[in-house]
């Protein structure tokens, strides 16, 4: 896995910038029921993202986003949603900027901020720990709602000083994880997950947060591109996530992310054992049957079908707020694995059959194959003249003999060098620093001397040195 991560960027690397590409195909999901899976501010983010990227759902999503924003307190998000809608659907009623709402909400927000800060000050003067903690919590929630993420994070962090029960540790961390997920601050998420894990006391308590922790941690690994770790986290998620992480990630996402990461990083046996036969993950997998199908196809060596299933969901995944950045890379990893598996029993395969079986529509495999061979994923050679991919024939005997000779030569060289070094030190003529100035002069003298005598070096056989 590590080698895959450090591999050179492939020609089909994901385009990183949000909104840098447009999804034209209609997705398979229904927007209403999709957004039902989420709660809180992530709904707004997801709607805006879909609105910007999808030509098919754009207007509808942005309309929802505007409505969603107006129900909340975040003026900046409202601007964002409304501005996008203004460009793609100016005739919609929601596309008109509601100035009175903005004024009203901004005044309310300011008043609320002031009130909560005053209150907190009061609590601090009274030195009642519990009140200070709750004051901070209210303030954090308020800042979060109006979109002041750094301030919200700070306020929630301050809660930690006044904690008195382990339940509160979990609360604090959940707040922080929420904000951090929106900021994409994955390091903070990981550290908070660890804090919760160490604070958990009973098994009952553990059971209630375990799915949440694993889902969030998986997401953190996933978004930094550590697919193997992400797969591990997602696969360990116990059933019962339901809406507990709905502000960040839905159970469907766990199935999709976990399944794709596993497909991209695990071999056939692991997939069978750890994904399909994994009872806790199965509850998630049932929600996204196409992932389950893709994995079964892979295990049964029907690589083309596996890739077709994934390809047909590409549009959906491109509209996911986290998945879209990674989907190309993950698909490429999966495709690479399929090719490697497919190629194992053959000594040569025509490039045409590879192209028809594996290449994404309208593309050829050549570049990807070259990249895979260069990375060492695929032990084969391309024959462009006859259009074949040929497996490499190794002659173990010759390899061994060559290796033996090389080792002997290395030994000779090394031993010789060490003997020489010993005699140099016996003669006491190492390069030493006390005589440095002296030695430097001698060096310079040598070069003047040589330069003069050799006339700039032996310009023999058309070479100059």
């Amino acid at each position, binding site marked *: 896995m590590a080698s895959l991560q450090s591999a050179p960027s492939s020609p089909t690397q994901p385009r990183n910038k949000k909104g840098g590409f447009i999804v034209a195909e209609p997705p398979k999901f229904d927007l209403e029921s999709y957004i039902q899976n989420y709660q809180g501010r992530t709904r707004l983010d997801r709607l805006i993202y879909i609105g910007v990227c999808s030509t098919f759902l754009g207007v509808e999503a942005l309309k929802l986003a505007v409505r969603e924003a107006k129900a909340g307190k975040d003026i900046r998000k409202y601007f964002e949603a409304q501005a996008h809608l203004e460009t793609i659907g100016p005739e919609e009623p929601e596309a008109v900027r509601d100035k009175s709402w903005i004024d009203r909400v901004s005044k309310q927000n300011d008043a609320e901020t002031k009130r909560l800060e005053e209150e907190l000050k009061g609590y601090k003067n009274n030195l009642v720990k519990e009140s200070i903690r709750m004051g901070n919590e209210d303030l954090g929630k308020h800042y979060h709602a109006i979109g002041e993420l750094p301030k919200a994070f700070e306020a929630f962090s301050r809660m930690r000083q006044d904690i008195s029960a382990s339940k509160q540790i979990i609360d604090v961390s959940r707040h922080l994880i929420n904000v951090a997920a929106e900021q994409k601050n994955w390091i903070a998420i990981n550290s908070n997950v660890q804090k919760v894990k160490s604070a958990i006391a009973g098994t009952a308590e553990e059971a209630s947060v375990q799915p949440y922790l694993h889902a969030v941690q998986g997401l953190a690994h996933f978004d930094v591109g550590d697919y193997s770790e992400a797969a591990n986290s997602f696969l360990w998620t116990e059933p019962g996530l339901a809406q507990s992480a709905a502000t960040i990630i839905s159970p469907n996402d766990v199935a999709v992310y976990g399944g794709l990461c596993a497909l991209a990083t695990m071999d056939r046996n692991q997939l069978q054992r750890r994904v399909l036969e994994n009872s806790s993950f199965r509850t998630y997998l049932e929600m996204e049957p196409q992932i389950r199908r893709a994995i079964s196809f892979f295990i049964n060596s029907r690589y083309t079908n596996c890739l077709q299933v994934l390809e047909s969901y590409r549009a959906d995944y491109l509209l996911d707020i986290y998945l879209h950045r990674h989907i190309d890379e993950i698909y490429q990893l999966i495709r690479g694995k399929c090719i490697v598996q497919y190629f194992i029993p053959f000594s040569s395969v025509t490039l045409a059959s590879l192209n028809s079986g594996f290449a994404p529509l309208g593309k050829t495999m050549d570049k990807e194959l*070259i990249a895979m*061979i*260069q990375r060492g994923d695929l032990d084969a*050679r*391309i*024959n*462009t*003249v*006859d259009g074949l991919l*040929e497996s*490499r*024939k*190794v*002659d173990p005997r*010759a390899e061994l*003999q*060559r290796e*033996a*000779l090389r080792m*002997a*030569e290395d*030994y*000779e060289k*090394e*031993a*010789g*060098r*060490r*003997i*020489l*070094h*010993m*005699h*140099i*030190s*016996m*003669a*006491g*003529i*190492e*390069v*030493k*620093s006390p005589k440095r100035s002296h*030695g430097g002069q*001698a*060096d*310079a003298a*040598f*070069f003047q001397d040589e*330069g003069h*005598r*050799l006339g*700039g*070096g*032996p*310009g*023999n056989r058309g*070479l*100059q*040195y």
Partner: protein
Amino acid sequence: MDDILPKLLNFPQHPPPPNPLSDQQYDEGIRAQISVVKNIPNSKLLQPTSGGENVLDIINPSVNSVPYTFILIANIEAAQRNDKNIDQENLWNSIIAFLAQFDPRQMRYMQTELSQILDIFSNMARRHHQIPTAIPHIRDALLRFEPTGTLLTPKHLLLVKLALEAKQFDDVLPVIDKTILYIPGAGHRPRQKYLCNICLPPAAYITVQTGFVAKPLKHLEVLEYFLLSGQVYIGLKKWKRASECLEVAVTYPTKDSGPSKVMTEAYKKWILVRLLMDGKMPVLPKVTSPGAAKVLKVLGKPYETVAQIFEQGTASRLKSELEAGRDLWTTDCNMGLVMCVMAAYQQFQIKNLANVHTKLTMVDIHNLTQSAEIGSKLPNAAAVETLVQSMIADGTLHATLSHPPNQSPVLTFSPNGPLLTEKQTQAALAASSTRIKALTEEIKTTDRMLMYEKEYVNYAKKMKKNAAAGLEHGVGVNDMDFLGEDEDLMGSLY
């Protein structure tokens, strides 16, 4: 003259005695002979025989090396005084005859004189522009005197310098091809009882006291030898040996100090040579002194950049980098190597294609590779074909070229590179094991020599004392951690 001839030819006995002399008898005989001949005044040595012949023409240098040497030196000194009786050309020929025929066993007792003759000979060669003729004679003399060639002497350096002056490289290969293992020691070593013992390792009969090496070698001379022999190999485009020589210079031990300037020069050349060899940025060998390595890295930065671009960059970048550094390469006298690097870029590109492809048309190769010399693709596929043909011909590319009718020529890479036949492999393995066995002997020799080093003796004394003290106090020697700081000189070899 005739009266002293018997004295001169007194030793070794002629005809040889039925039982060869023991080392002791030989030693006594030759020492006596030397002291006798030394006491004969030069004027007498210079007299011709009664028949008017030059004595040098009568004495056989391979049998009577001692008197021949003294007479030769007398002649040379006379020639330096511009004595009219000395024929320069005759003298030159006599020296050549001597260098080709002297008896190395006898010359062990005449090392100062041998060294003197070699110096004079090379000076004469320089003066008369005869260096090319002189080089083979000096080379043969060196190998005649010390056949293993593993001991570095100032004459080695002299020889390499002559070769570079005359730009005549092939002739010195027999000497510089040998791996240098020994440096003549400064002392401490027990005197060998009999120099004539033919089993002695070279480091035992050539030391600073025995005269062939007039004064201890300095680090600069050692480094210089390796840098210059590296240059000889570069001149011959023998990259492998060149890199080995330069590597010795680069890894030369330093003590609390940065590298010498020679080491940096060697490092720069080493990078380029290794680039020509494997097409990759080389990694400094582990034995490089850490202090030196840091400084080398800094000073060799421009060269390392070139290596990186060579490995990963495009032809046009390499070309502009090499052109930007033109002044630097010229100052460092590395322009020639840099040109080679430029030319090698496309060759390595083509070679690397074998890591991905088995068969390619010329048109493909033309499209996939670029020439660093012009910073872009070659003008046409035919030019690529010429390049590929030359690479196959000189053995750098293991592939075959075929011309299918009406198509671009096709290059087929051979999958496993060059294959040795079973016999060749056997021979190579046998040769290698012989060399390693010989090396094991050298290791033993070195070990013995280390035993007489002052440091080791002190260490051994300390060990003994500790062992005694340890027994008294009931502590084993191994319990004493402070012993760990003593250097483990041979341990890392095994």
